[in-house]
């Protein structure tokens, strides 16, 4: 607190002497937190180490023995997990605060090296034969187990990504949009079911009151995946007469999620729902416009987008107020 503001505080009579004293003491002994710096160092350390080891193994696969490599990776993984098991707080269905960031990142390193371990086993010895489902299923199970057991959100996100690999797609939002191979019908259905499963999982965490704070991760991935796959489903069947069913499903889902977000006062999800529904609605409107003659359609589009965006701005401001007030 700077001096000008501090003087202002002292003049007020409704500020107790104790509070003034608290602030004065804090100003005299300022503590400088290195929390985020150290956390970034840990993150970089884990990232560099796991990447470096990955390349090292890949390049030297012929010169050092396979058993040696496997042993090294296993040792790192076991070492990390041992540390975490030793320092872990007891399990609880609620949020468990991790003892420190080091714990978080060693757990992450342990999981990453376990993934490398399994991948290496499969690559070299084809332990799972040609049963690729199994080869991705086991890491996924481990990731989810670790995420719940040690209460680690980052590993939960990795688990969700692995669930997607197991189902045959890869799923972090960036890849979802950039890979863009949506032509295939089965891909769309897989994505859609994945999204819905995640949404369901998110709701179940709350229903059973089991790790309720994981709900955010499930819903974050679930909402993006479901809406994007519904939109692509619509475009994939653009000329079919039943293509509108995709958008109908989208609006139904949007309404459900809207009510849910209002209930939880989650503005992030509300924003996603509003924007995705706006895209879907605009697609319908533009489709209706382009049945007109060329120039008129352009004018109508401009008017529609200007008007609707203004309306949406008002809506967002209104919803924000409503959530704050409730």
């Amino acid at each position, binding site marked *: 607190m700077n001096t000008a503001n501090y003087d*202002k505080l002292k003049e007020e009579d409704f500020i107790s002497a104790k509070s003034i004293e*608290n602030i004065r003491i804090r100003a005299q002994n300022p503590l400088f937190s290195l929390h985020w710096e150290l956390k970034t160092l840990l993150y970089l350390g884990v990232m560099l180490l796991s990447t*470096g080891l990955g390349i090292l193994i890949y390049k030297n696969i012929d010169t050092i023995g396979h058993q040696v490599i496997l042993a090294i990776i296993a040792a790192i993984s076991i070492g990390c997990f041992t540390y975490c098991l030793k320092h872990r707080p007891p399990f609880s269905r609620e949020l468990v605060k991790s003892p420190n960031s080091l714990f978080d990142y060693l757990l992450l390193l342990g999981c990453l090296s376990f993934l490398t371990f399994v991948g290496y086993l499969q690559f070299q010895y084809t332990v799972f034969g040609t049963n690729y489902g199994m080869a991705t299923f086991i890491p996924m199970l481990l990731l989810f187990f670790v995420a719940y057991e040690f209460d680690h959100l980052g590993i939960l996100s990795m688990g969700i990504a692995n669930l997607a690999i197991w189902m045959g797609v890869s799923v972090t939002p960036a890849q979802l949009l950039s890979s863009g*191979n949506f032509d295939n019908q089965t891909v769309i259905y897989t994505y859609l079911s994945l999204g819905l499963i995640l949404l369901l999982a998110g709701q179940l965490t709350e229903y059973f009151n089991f790790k309720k704070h994981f709900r955010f991760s499930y819903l974050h991935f679930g909402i993006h995946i479901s809406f994007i796959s519904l939109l692509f489903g619509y475009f994939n069947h653009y000329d079919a007469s039943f293509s509108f069913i995709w958008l109908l499903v989208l609006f139904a889902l949007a309404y459900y999620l809207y009510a849910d977000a209002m209930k939880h006062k989650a503005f992030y999800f509300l924003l996603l729902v509003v924007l995705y529904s706006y895209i879907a609605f605009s697609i319908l409107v533009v489709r209706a416009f382009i049945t007109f003659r060329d120039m008129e359609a352009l004018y109508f589009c401009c008017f529609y987008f200007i008007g609707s965006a203004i309306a949406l701005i008002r809506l967002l401001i209104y919803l924000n107020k409503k959530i704050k007030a409730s």
Partner: protein
Amino acid sequence: MIIYNRTWLKNLDLQNQLKRAHRLGDITAEELKQMEEKYPVGFYTPNIFVRAGLFILTQIITSFAGGLLSLIFSSMGDLITSPGYFLFLGLISYVALELIVQQKHHFRSGVDDALMWTAAGLILAAFIGYLSIAQRNSLSAPFECYVFFFAMVLAGYFTLRFADMLMAVVSFLSLICFLFFSRELFGFYAAAIRPFLIILVSAGVYFLCVYWKKYKDYENCLTAMQVFCLLIGYAAGNYFVVKEMGSMINQPLQEGEGLPLGWFFWTWTIALPFVYIALGLKRKEVILLRSGLILIAAAAFTFRNYYHVMPIEGALSLVGAALLAIAYGVIRYLKTPKKGFTYEELDDDQLLDKIKVESLIVGETFSGPSAAPEGSRMGGGSFGGGGSSADF
């Protein structure tokens, strides 16, 4: 000059500090509430999600409104391709911006951000348009010189008027680009003195920012500019940058030929990040400390680019292990706060916590390599090709 209500800005600063004091448990909720009532802030500043949403929607409105106007005017010859038309659109955006800020008291709401960047972009585009016409009558200095000088003045104006961080940074970077391109001004030795000139200017701006600390309304802008002064000042003396930039503009250096004054640039490259960190720790300044940490990576990359001590994977593993060890050591050392430093999170940033940024970053970066489709894993040679067509 500043468009915002200055009392409200002061109150906002007070409220933010009181909120922090409340989070730390120094003052009670009752006291905070009374202070907030006594020192009100009338701005409309929604949370980051609303801001992002409003930004996107305002962009939609401005682009379609511009499109509609262009449609209407498109019959009038080459009106809509003339620079004057861009200026016209830019001024409309600017007027809308002034109105929304003055009448509706928007303050970093997304609407004002969108309008500001649209207006600045269009006005700059108009200037470039005029300049291309004028260039046919031959200009005395390079084209970029005029552009960056104008960009600096324009962004500077927006910074002063709206106290926007990014605009301040753009203004500073434009100044550096202007110096970079204005080789005619310095005659024959332009390439030789350019690094020192940019270092001096960065240092000058940095100390000006420190000196200007008393202008509280622009605190964010000054902080952002300081960060970029430190980074640019380092880059200007970085061996790699100097060498590449020098040989890009003048005749290229021969293969294996060193830079004149090489020792100076190498010292600058390696030592400066540590100087930043040391000063940051000594003065307990986040800006210096974090810039230094970032620049250590830059120094390492520069060094590796010229001296291949070990293969990249070995270096990655070693550095990774070293970073883990350092972090571990420091965390152990700071278990109880020492010398005014602590490892504890003092003021947990609630917003970062709300969207769980850390977990998303971990999910994004670590699921990448292992997320390669099964097909490519069996391809033998190429990892992570992402080939959906690979069959087995």
